[in-house]
C-alpha cells in the first residue's frame, strides 16, 4: 500500500542555503509521525514545501500517490492537508467561531448571490457550517469562548483554536508545527492525549514537528531527524533514542541546555 504522504528527494535552496536537502519521508495512513531536529534544521521549511508555500527546487511530493508539488496552498488544503503554524497565525481580530467558520469555506457550494439573498439552500448550508464549527469547538474545549476575539484567548487556547481551525477544513493529513511550544509538562501530556483522540475521532494522519522529547517519544509511530536540511536518522522512538548521531546532534544539545 502506498503511503498517504511521500516526499521524494525534495530539496529547496534559498540562495546558497540548502534549507531542505533530499528529504524522503513517508507517512502511512493513520500514523503519527514526528520530525525533530535542532533550530534551523529545515523542519518548518519542510511543512511549507508540503503545503505549497514554497515550491521545491527539486523532487516530488505525493499525496495518495498524486503529485502535489507546484499546486497552490489553497489547492493543497482542498486536497486534504491542513496545518497549524509555529508562530500562531489566527485571524486575530475575528471571533473564535469565525476563525473556525472561515476554514469551512473551502467546501462551500452556495454561490455568492444565493448566500447574500439567503436562499433556502444557502441558509441550510450556513446552518450546517455553524453546527460543524460549534461541534469542533466543543471537541477542542473552546465552545464557551466562541464569541471571544481570537487574540484575547490565552496562548494555550490559541494553539487549540489553530487545531480546531485546521480540522474545519476536513483534512486527511494534519500538520502540527510545534503544538506543545510554551506548554508545561502537564499541558503537553494533555496535548499528547488530545492529538491521539482527534486522530482516532477524525480518522486523521498526523505529521508533527516538536521539541518536547517526552511528547515525541510517547506519541510517534515513526520519527525523522533533520539537521542542516539533511535527514540524519529515521525510525521508531526506541531506535532514535539509541542512535548515536541523533544524541550528538540533537538530544545531546538538549542535555547541554538542561544542564
Amino acid at each position: 500500500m502506498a503511503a498517504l504522504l511521500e516526499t521524494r528527494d525534495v530539496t529547496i535552496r534559498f540562495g546558497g542555503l540548502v534549507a531542505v536537502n533530499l528529504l524522503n519521508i513517508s507517512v502511512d495512513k493513520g500514523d503519527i509521525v514526528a520530525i525533530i531536529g535542532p533550530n534551523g534544521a529545515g523542519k518548518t521549511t519542510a511543512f511549507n514545501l508540503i503545503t505549497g508555500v514554497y515550491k521545491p527546487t527539486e523532487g516530488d511530493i505525493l499525496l495518495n500517490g498524486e503529485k502535489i508539488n507546484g499546486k497552490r496552498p489553497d489547492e493543497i488544503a482542498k486536497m486534504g492537508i491542513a496545518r497549524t503554524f509555529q508562530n500562531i497565525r489566527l485571524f486575530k481580530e475575528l471571533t473564535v467561531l469565525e476563525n473556525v467558520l472561515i476554514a469551512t469555506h473551502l467546501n462551500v457550494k452556495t454561490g455568492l448571490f444565493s448566500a447574500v439573498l439567503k436562499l433556502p439552500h444557502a441558509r441550510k448550508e450556513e446552518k450546517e457550517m455553524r453546527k460543524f464549527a460549534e461541534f469542533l469547538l466543543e471537541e477542542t474545549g473552546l465552545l464557551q469562548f466562541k464569541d471571544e476575539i481570537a487574540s484575547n484567548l490565552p496562548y494555550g487556547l490559541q494553539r487549540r483554536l489553530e487545531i480546531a481551525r485546521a480540522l474545519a477544513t476536513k483534512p486527511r493529513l494534519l500538520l502540527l508545527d510545534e503544538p506543545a511550544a510554551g506548554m508545561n509538562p502537564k499541558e503537553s501530556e494533555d496535548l499528547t492525549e488530545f492529538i491521539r483522540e482527534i486522530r482516532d475521532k477524525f480518522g486523521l494522519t498526523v505529521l508533527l514537528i516538536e521539541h518536547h522529547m517526552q511528547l515525541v517519544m510517547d506519541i510517534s509511530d515513526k520519527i525523522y531527524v533533520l539537521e542542516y536540511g539533511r535527514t540524519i536518522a529515521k525510525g521508531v522512538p526506541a531506535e532514535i533514542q539509541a542512535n548515536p548521531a541523533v544524541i550528538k546532534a540533537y538530544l545531546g544539545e538538549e542535555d547541554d541546555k538542561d544542564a
Partner: protein
Amino acid sequence: MKTMNKRNLILNIVVIAALIGFIIWAEESRSFGAYNQRIFKTCCIYAICALSMNMVNGFTGLFSLGQPGFMAIGAYVTAFLTVSAQDKISIYKIVPISEGMANLHLPFFAALILGGIIAAVFAFLIGFPVLRLRGDYLAIATLGFSEIIRIFITNAQGITNGPTGINRIPNTYMNLYVVCGILALIMIFILAMMKTSYGRALLAIREDEVAAEAMGINLFKHKMLAFVLSGFFAGIGGGLLASLVGAIGPDQFKFTVAYEILLMVVLGGQGSVSGCVAGAFVVRIALEKLRFLDEPIDFGFIQYKGIGGMRMVVFSVLLMLVIILWRKGIFGSKEFSWDRFFGFFAKFKKSPKKEVIE
C-alpha cells in the same frame, strides 16, 4: 440579553423611520432648500464610493486607489447613454460624433447599471495583473490605472468629447429617493454579504493571507471578487455623480479624488459600512463648509485674499492628522451598534465607581 435585543430592534426601527421621514421632508419641503439637498445627495454618492473603496481596502486588507478610474467609467457611460442624440451632436464640436454613436441611448437606470457593469469589467481585466501585487505596489498600480483612464478620456475625443467633457446630462431621476435608495440597497447588499461565508473569507485575507490560503481560500479569486464589486459600486457612484452635476470632464476624476475617498474611509473606520457612510458625510460637509477658505475673507483688520485650493491644503493636513493620530476612525472596523453606543456613555458614568471598588 433578550430585552437588550428588543431595545436595539426598537431603536433601529425608530432611527430608520426617522431617517425615512427626514428624507421625505428634505425632498418635499421647501425649507430644506435645493442647496442642502444637493449636499445631501453628494454625500450619499460619495458614501457609495467610500463603500466601494472599503470593499477592497477595509474588508480585504488591500490598498487600492482605483476609484477615480472606475467612477470615470461609470460617469461617462451613464452620461453618454442618457444625453439625447441632438444634444450630443451639438456638444461634440471639435470632433463631431457619428450619427450611430449619437443615437445610442438608454433609459437612466439601464445606463447607470451598464456603467457599473463596464466599470466592473475593467476591474476584472486589470485585476489579473495588479491583484498579484502587494501593498503599496497595488496602490501605485491602481492609481496609475485611474490616470490612464483619465488620459484616455481626455484624448478619445470622438467618444468622450475630450477635455471639454459632456454636459446637458439629464437629472430627471436625481431625487433624494433614488439617491438614498441606491445607497441603502448597496449598504444592505454589503452588510448581508459580510455575514456570508464569502464575506468572512475576505476578512480572513485581511487578517492573515498566509493562514487564509492555508485554510483553502483561493486568494486571487476572492481578491478579484472584492475588486470587481468595488469597481461596480464606484461605477454606479460615478454615474450618479454625472447625473447630479449635469456636466462632466476628465478633471473631475483626478487622482486627488482617491485621497478624498480614502479620507472618508479612514476617518469613518476601515471595514465598517456605517463608518464609511458617516465618514463620507463628515468629509463632504466639511469640504463644503471649508469653501470659504478659497474665497476672500474680510476680518476687518486683516484682509485674507483667498487662495484657490487652500481648502485642499487644509483638507490634506486633516487627512495626514487622521492617519497619524486616529487610524481606527470613528467606528473602528466594527459596525455601529446600540450596545457600543450606550457602552460609550456608560464608560463616563461608571469609571469613577470602578476606582472605588478597586
